[in-house]
């Protein structure tokens, strides 16, 4: 037998519930294995220590009013029932209950008709009338430098946006430098983002962007 198997049988060994051959095997293991023997002794001591808690007892008159208190609390219990239970308990539902099957069937039919009505009356979606607030059409202009343009060479022009009117932005073009020209149609006052050397930077209308 292995140690962990033996250690799980300590309780049964102490209570005498183990079959004799198994009991002998456990005892033999305890005689041979020092670890298990020490563990068994410690566990037995712990159990005897915990058993001393049985001597903790309340004072002799501790339960004198127990039954009376129980009855008081029991009588107070019905007031703790929920609102709906009390509401339905107060109502006389007997006449309604006699019609319960008919009412349930009528309810199901009404529900089914309502679902059918909603299903037939619902037209397909016509789409949203709202348009995108900001339209950005990028245009790459290369001046004086025929070499290909990579993403990190793109820069955005300096511009300031009015709040409510569409605006055409003219790029400032430097010789030999590729520029991303942007046409912006602005309709609402939501902030937008400008691609600035691959990172996205929020632009506000108050502060012009320097680069």
């Amino acid at each position, binding site marked *: 037998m292995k140690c962990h198997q033996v250690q799980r049988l300590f309780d049964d060994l102490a209570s005498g519930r183990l079959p004799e051959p198994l009991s002998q095997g456990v005892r033999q293991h305890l005689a041979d294995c020092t670890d298990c023997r020490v563990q068994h002794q410690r566990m037995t001591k712990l159990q005897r*220590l915990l058993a001393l808690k049985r001597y903790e007892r*309340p004072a002799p008159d501790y339960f004198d009013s127990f039954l*009376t208190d129980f009855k008081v*609390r029991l009588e107070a219990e019905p007031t703790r029932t929920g609102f709906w239970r009390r509401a339905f308990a107060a109502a006389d539902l007997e006449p309604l209950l006699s019609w319960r099957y008919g009412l349930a069937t009528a309810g199901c039919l009404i529900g089914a008709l309502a679902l059918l009505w909603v299903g037939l009356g619902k037209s397909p979606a016509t789409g949203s009338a709202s348009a995108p607030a900001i339209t950005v059409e990028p245009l790459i202009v290369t001046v004086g430098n025929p070499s290909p343009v990579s993403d990190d060479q793109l820069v955005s022009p300096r511009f300031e946006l009015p709040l409510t009117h569409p605006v055409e932005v003219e790029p400032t073009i430097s010789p030999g430098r590729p520029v991303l020209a942007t046409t912006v149609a602005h309709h609402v006052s939501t902030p937008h983002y400008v691609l600035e050397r691959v990172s996205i930077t929020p632009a506000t209308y108050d502060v012009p962007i320097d680069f």
Partner: protein
Amino acid sequence: MKLLERLRTDRRLSPAPARDDQAIDLWLEEDEALVSRAQRGQTRAFDVLIERYKERLYATVYHMTSNREDANDLVQDTFIKAYKSLRSFKGQSSFYTWVYRIAVNRTINFLKRGKNRTHHSLDNVDDSIQTDPDFVELMSQDTPHREAGLHELQQQLNAALQKLSDNHRAVVVLHDVQGMTHADIAKAMKCSEGTVRSRLFYARQQLQGLLSEYL
């Protein structure tokens, strides 16, 4: 006999005074008969069941909570729950097992809610412990706690138990303090015997570390 005397003399328990012989007859009846009577509306039969098991239930709950007031409240709650659910009791287990399960579950739920009183209010220790061979042996050992005495031992035991998880503490209390079998604990806690054994094993491992000075 003290209970019989009380049953004879206590007139507060019932609106109408019961005859002495009826109270005695009830006290002599088995649990099944009392449950049957209580299910038919005889509250005095349930009173006898309360008298019969309140102290054992209290002891279990007290060892799990280490607080007298909490234990008293929980045992009252347990009997109220049992009384209200009495019609659903089919007798598949004994009344004591059934009510025990209610008490243990309510106590575990109570502890999980964290509403238990934080301080310990411990019961007295019966003087008869002084003649217990285990206690005598423990006190005769040459340990630093020999002079500390009974009160500190009680404090240490309760403090160590409170450091266990709720389920581990319940299993240790039911087995090592109350002396219940694995099978009965499994029924009371609605889990398998293997789970009980496993919890017991790990709880004892933890307790051995916490109480190493006494072992």
